[in-house]
């Protein structure tokens, strides 16, 4: 059984156990929102997630366990969002919004491709140490806020939810090369934010 934990949760859901619904919602609301956010944008994301949950409840008994529960939920969310999108067509842009820090290769490498301004040692060298600094968390909020809806969702689905690149492409209807570009630039922005903070103590 590849999805044993899913099946156990599903059985409890079908019995109508309230704690199972709490577990379901707490585990999957955030990735579902990331998918909706990427496809329809911030203003419609909550409405889509709500609609997707209702559709999930209606179809719970039909879930066959051929994919993981997570994939099933995210696919329902993506489909709900895509039908909404037909009403509010938007373009996927690879451009970032202004704000946050950028990693600018022209300022970091010499003409021969070697580092001219190499990365320096960071005093805080673990994620826990980095995140314990409240000001840094505020800087990261700013940086994440400067990402486009799609880019932010790509970063969250990859780093927090661990989805495969291919899965992200399918859910969000973004080409593989665009997912790679969006993800790479988002990671460089996170890097640049951490680096700037470690060097100056400021955003």
């Amino acid at each position, binding site marked *: 059984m590849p999805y044993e934990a899913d099946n156990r949760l599903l059985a409890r859901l079908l019995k109508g156990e309230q704690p199972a619904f709490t577990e379901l919602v707490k585990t999957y609301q955030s990735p579902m929102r990331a998918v909706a956010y990427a496809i329809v944008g911030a203003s419609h994301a909550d409405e889509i997630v709500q609609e997707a949950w209702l559709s999930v409840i209606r179809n719970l008994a039909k879930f066959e366990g051929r994919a993981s529960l997570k994939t099933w939920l995210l696919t329902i969310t993506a489909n709900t969002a895509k039908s909404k999108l037909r009403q509010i067509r938007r373009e996927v842009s690879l451009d970032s919004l202004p704000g946050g820090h950028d990693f600018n290769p022209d300022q970091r490498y010499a003409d021969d491709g070697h580092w001219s301004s190499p990365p320096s040692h960071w005093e805080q060298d673990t*994620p826990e140490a980095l995140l314990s600094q409240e000001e840094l968390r505020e800087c990261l909020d700013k940086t994440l806020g400067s990402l486009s809806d799609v880019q932010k969702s790509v970063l969250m689905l990859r780093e927090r939810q661990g989805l495969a690149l291919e899965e992200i492409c399918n859910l969000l209807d973004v080409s593989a090369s665009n997912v790679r570009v969006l993800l790479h630039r988002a990671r460089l922005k996170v*890097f640049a934010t*951490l680096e700037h903070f470690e060097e100056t103590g400021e955003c």
Partner: protein
Amino acid sequence: MLSCRELAEQASQYLDKDLSLSQQLSVRMHLLMCRHCRRFIHQLRLGQQVIRQYPEPLDERLDELAKQLAERSSKQ
């Protein structure tokens, strides 16, 4: 031989194990010899972990939502 600048361009794909075998080998070869790039990759990984562990704002509405869903499903 891969330059440091080229390595940075492939860094994300390296982290995602999304490179061809020969590309992966040239990144590894470069990393063996270049401490700046080793540090760069290390710090990119730190960034990944920071995003993974970044505390999410607690959403109090979730308990209410779960309750509604449970009620709705019992009526199906």
